[in-house]
């Protein structure tokens, strides 16, 4: 078993909304970190981790030019800004929720 780290220790992130879709831009601190994120933080793992808040599917996009992965999460905001009962109906704290996830590192 390798060592584990929380994403917050190797990445930063910002999240936001479009209707009931929330995206989290997860950004590595350096190139080595980006390779690790790319290998470990798959759409499936994010869906499994965020499943309590995210009803729909999670899609991952890669932006190596920004050392970033973009996770697009559907059905993620309790109906979206204009319908949701959540305090965070705009998904501002979803980035933080993801940053608590642990991954294995080299």
């Amino acid at each position: 078993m390798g060592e584990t780290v929380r994403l917050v220790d190797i990445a930063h992130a910002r999240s936001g909304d479009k209707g009931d879709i929330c995206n989290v831009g997860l950004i590595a601190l350096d190139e080595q970190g980006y390779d690790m994120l790319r290998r470990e933080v798959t759409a499936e793992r994010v869906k499994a981790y965020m499943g309590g808040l995210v009803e729909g599917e999670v899609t991952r996009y890669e932006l190596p030019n920004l050392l970033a992965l973009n996770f697009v999460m559907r059905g993620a905001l309790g109906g979206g800004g204009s319908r949701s009962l959540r305090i965070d109906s705009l998904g501002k704290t979803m980035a933080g929720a993801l940053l608590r996830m642990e991954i294995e590192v080299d």
Partner: protein
Amino acid sequence: MWPDRTDAALEVIEKGSVAYIAFDTMAEMTLPGLQRQRLDSPGKGYTDIRRASAEILPACMRHGVKMITNAGGANPEAAWQIALEQARARGLKGARIAVIVGDDTVGEATLRRVRELEAEGASLAHADTGAPLESVLGRVIAMSVYLGHEPIARALALGADLVVTGRHTDSAMWLAPAAHEFGWRADDWDVMARGIVVGHLMECSGHVTGGNFSFWQDVPHPDRLGFPIAEVYENGDAIITKVEGSGGVVSLRTCREQLLYEIHDPANYYTPDVVVDFTTLHLEEAGPDRVRVSGATGRPRPDTLKACLAYRDGYFAEGFTFYAWPGALAKARRAAETLEKRYQRLGLRFESLQMDIVGVNALHGPLAPEPECELNEVAVRVAVKGARESDILAAMREIYAMDLSGPAAAAGAFHVGPREMIALWPTSVPRGAIASDVRVAQV
């Protein structure tokens, strides 16, 4: 955003050596509320046009800065009239104020417009879920179409000092002045894409200068955070910076975070003006608080435009009550359980009910870990939504009753609502079915 800081905007006008300043005053969610205001009162439904024209425009006129804002919201023409009044009252003689009238309807006219658009081939299905509009059609109250940069550029070409618009895409407000200055062709997809990238970086004001930033501890002087400035080159590349000596920070990291803000597929970011590829752009440091953004590419704009319908979606309210040591969390949990049982006992009917403990799980919900230490104080938050306003109000009253009949020492109960919920229905319409018009008046 609305509201946002006036002094930071004035600093850019007075010390930033800028030719244009743009204000995005609308989030996606701002629109349904504004449409509702206009429905209730035909002269309302805009955002911060009064402050923009009374406090910002005079400084713009003094410094020769042209101003663009979507403060027209769901009622650009009413906002235009206010801007003209304010400009007159402040003696801004000669100021040219333009309004962009696009496809905004409220009330009964909306249903007629929907029928026309359907006749022209628009399905108006929900953009995210694919649901047919029929399911909410009887409750639709308004529609706004997201416009691109061209009408704003036209207004600037007509000599406008202030351009007031409504539901434009945010980023178009920054693409437009660059396209106007450099005479960019609307089908030069790469420069269009670069202009949108600049707009995307600029549109949330402090977001790119250290606001809402993960490394917030390192942001100097957040009380006087500088607003961003873009120095745009003829090929669309730009330097993002801020007024020297202002608070905040512009760095690769602030730019990366903002580039990723509210985008989906980064290789296919749809706007009315161009489909932008964010994966081809390059960021580099170009000095203290200076980041160069270059090389974004674009593909031809879509044949459709985004539209948002607003529809009535029942009633909403939320209430809070607070508990402190000893046993704050246990008391709050008992209160939440008791409230749920009361709602069942009273036979209240909701479409949805949410109970949160503020201090534990009100933001991260089921992902929140159990607290590791004893909490000194927490709040119970109850949010309900349903078709019957009386049930929602009854649910809120029960929160106050917890003071007398619930766990020991509940404090500070309050609630907000009930209010009618106006929900958004994002969809698309054929570009050819949408017309916009520019009008200019001189003070």
